[in-house]
């Protein structure tokens, strides 16, 4: 089962997966290791690019996996090209992950709404 948890910055996504999906602190990391939950995907996308992140995730999609990502791109188009590209990259990558996910949960002020 692949669960994607998205929402704005500091909306309680990590707290949500601890509380609702019974994930322990030891199982959470911003990395592609043995951790059950990968948090702050947006940081990994900024560091490595969306395509590389999707390739890493392909290896994980065969077993249970919880992914958390900040929703970005809901502001004025940035002046800097690299920032514009970053927002588009997060968007495209998350569209692809959302398609593969069994569940997508959007967290708003700590409250999760299942949208898929």
């Amino acid at each position, binding site marked *: 089962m692949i669960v994607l948890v998205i929402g704005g910055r500091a909306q309680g996504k990590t707290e949500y997966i601890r509380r609702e999906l019974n994930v322990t602190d030891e199982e959470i990391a911003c990395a592609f290791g043995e951790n059950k939950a990968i948090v702050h995907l947006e940081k990994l996308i900024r560091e490595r690019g969306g395509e590389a992140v999707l390739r890493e995730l392909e290896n994980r999609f065969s077993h249970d996996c919880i992914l958390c990502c900040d929703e970005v791109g809901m502001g004025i188009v940035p002046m800097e090209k690299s920032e514009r590209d970053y927002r588009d990259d997060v968007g495209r990558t998350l569209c692809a992950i959302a398609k593969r996910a069994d569940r997508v949960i959007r967290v708003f002020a700590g409250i999760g709404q299942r*949208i*898929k």
Partner: protein
Amino acid sequence: MICVFSGGSGSGKSELAEKCAIRLAESRKGGLYYYATMRVWDKEGERRVEKHRRQRAGRGFVTVECPSYLDTEPSGGVILLECLSNRLANAMFCDRDEDPAGVILGEVKALAEKNSVVIVTNEVFSDGAEYDAETERYIDILGRLNCELCRMAELVVESVYGIPVVHKGELV
């Protein structure tokens, strides 16, 4: 009839809006129009236009370039307006319309009397950043336009990474 699709950058809103416009056109005799509002300034703009052209190629859209005036001639058809945020930016920053919201609302109302209008707009309201007065005014006007159009609309959808979150009406 008005349908509104909103979402952030790269949220997949165009794709959802296109599908909606195509489905609406299946039950109508009139044309299927793509109202392109973007002014192209550079290579990045060209690439964006090219990406959208590829996406809708072979889907039966007649492209109408209308950065600063929405052609209100069509009747009995389906119009995909892509997008409201560019149309407003052009009205404010290029054409210097005195009442940009009024002009655009008038155009959309005239179109919607005789056609189904599918509008793509943009969520630019949540970055919490402070901008210059012009940009602040743009954000406020786009927000009010969105509110007014969504009030008139039968269908309001927010695209969240390709997932349609329906705020009003039923997805067609």
